């Protein structure tokens, strides 16, 4: 299993174009954000004064990368990465070399872990770069870097990061599984990307809109409540619980979903999609 994981890791790491475009983009964005803020504060004294009064806390800087996958832009980048990794095996016709002698479920599991591992690794790099660069920026402008570093504040910060990272990993798993299913169906990176993005955008925006239209047309408000069963709503809801300690309000009439219910719904999605991808992959003929 370890050798298989090493093989998978090397495959992904060796695809420099993929890593540069879809993973290094995160740390780059982190640095670019700090660079942009520094430039603004250098050019505008009012903005600088405001910032010094209310600087970015290191706890927020640490959380920023983990909240990226909770928006559509972050999800699409991750989806593109995962689809390239999975559909690449079909496009390069390399499954036929890798599958004989291995259990397909094991191959899929290793792909999940390696893909997830790469995403977490680059978000962690982004977190470190943000923490350091924002700290550096604050030092340049003479701003403090709150909250003061104590054991309590450190543990609290770590707890927030772990919770957000777990949520990110869950969202990543769902997107990755979606990518696997799309890749199995299209067997092409390009078609996989297009289909994956369409599905992801529909899931994020299309389903709430469709539910809204259906509820207006049929004059049944309860139709809107169905949105609570979809992954995006539940990852957003969990994020809201973790970071604001309150449920997400999607539509005014949508029920407030408790934290545990969202955990349960997301677990069902992760397990269900994971099982489906294993089932399809096990039965699939490899050309």
């Amino acid at each position, binding site marked *: 299993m370890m*050798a298989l994981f090493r093989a998978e890791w090397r495959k992904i790491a*060796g695809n420099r174009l993929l890593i540069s475009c879809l993973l290094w983009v995160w740390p780059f964005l982190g640095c670019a954000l700090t660079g942009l803020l520094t430039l603004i504060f250098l050019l505008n004294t009012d903005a600088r004064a405001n910032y010094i009064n209310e600087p970015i806390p290191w706890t927020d800087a640490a959380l920023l990368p983990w909240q990226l996958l909770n928006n559509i832009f972050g999800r699409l980048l991750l989806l593109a990465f995962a689809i390239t990794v999975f559909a*690449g095996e079909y496009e390069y016709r390399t499954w*036929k070399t890798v599958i004989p002698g291995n259990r397909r479920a094991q191959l899929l599991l290793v792909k999940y872990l390696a893909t997830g591992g790469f995403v977490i690794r680059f978000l962690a790099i982004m977190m470190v770069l943000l923490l350091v660069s924002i700290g550096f920026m604050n030092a340049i402008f003479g701003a403090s870097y709150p909250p003061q570093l104590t054991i309590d504040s450190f543990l609290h910060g770590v707890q927030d990061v772990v919770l957000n990272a777990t949520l990110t990993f869950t969202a990543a798993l769902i997107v990755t599984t979606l990518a696997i299913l799309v890749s199995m169906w299209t067997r092409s990176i390009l078609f996989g990307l297009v289909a994956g993005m369409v599905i992801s955008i529909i899931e994020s925006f299309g389903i709430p809109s469709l539910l809204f239209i259906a509820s207006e047309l049929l004059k049944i408000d309860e139709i809107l409540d169905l949105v609570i069963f979809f992954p995006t709503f539940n990852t957003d809801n969990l994020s809201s619980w973790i970071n604001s300690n309150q449920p997400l309000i999607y539509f005014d009439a949508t029920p407030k979903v408790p934290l545990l219910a969202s955990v349960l719904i997301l677990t069902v999605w992760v397990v269900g999609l994971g099982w489906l991808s294993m089932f399809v992959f096990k039965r699939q003929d490899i050309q």
Partner: protein
Amino acid sequence: MSDAVIVTENLTKRFGSRWGRESKVAVQGVNLQVTGAQVYGFLGVNGAGKSTTIRMILDLMHPSQGRALVYGKDPRRQPDVLRRVGSLVEGATFYPYLSGWDNLRVIGNSQAQFNQQRATELVERVGLDKAIKVKVRAYSTGMKQRLGIAAALLQDPDLIILDEPTSGMDPAGIREMRRFIRDLAHEQGKTVFLTSHLLSEVQQTCDRLAIINAGQIIQEGALTDLLSQQSLYELDVSDVERTRNALQERWSVIPTENDGLLHINAPRADIPHIIKRLVEQGIDIYSMAPYRQSLEDYFLELVGLEEGKLS
């Protein structure tokens, strides 16, 4: 049989049978038995079902009916048995953004554990030592085939399945590969199961072969037995058309590309009768001699195709 390396039992594959589509039978009731330490050839024209059969043996495709056993085990239930198998299926394919060496590392680790020393030896053996650090996207087809053969042998497998192994290689490379494949079976005791469209290569490499046509095995046996099964004679006559008319009622007459030459399939005891009949018809006979059939002739005759239609 206890020493059988590959056994297929009524192996069948149908495509497109779902959602009301008419199904296409790619492989129909194939029964094979491949024993150890030999080179076993698997011949057939394009679309005959060779690669589909190999894919079912390697658990890349699921049989619609029947099963394939490798070393007595069904790879669908016990995929570990395929760790004893090295394969190169329908053209060598790799991760184009990795070097040849990194591809071997990835494949080695995917199969079991990458053995650097063995990989180095194999790279030298297939003549890729100078290009092994180059990215595979820059490789020619022949280089990819060589790398594919090295990859198939990485884990020192007992059974090696090679689908068109010399495809894209130059004549010197083909000769080298032929020697290499024979050594694997006869010096190292490996079993090699190979397909090739180069029938003369198969004739020089294989000990035993099966011929598949339209998804069905139409002939199977030791190469020498198959080629000596038919007693063919080459006849040089003054009038080919009249000779055919005179003989084809009783014997099988096969035209050749050369003017005045015919092949006749007949037992040795019939030769005096053939000559007598031709003399009675006033046809001049310049020579009549036993004809040693090549595998290509045999194959073409068997599948009823003309030369040039082979894959």
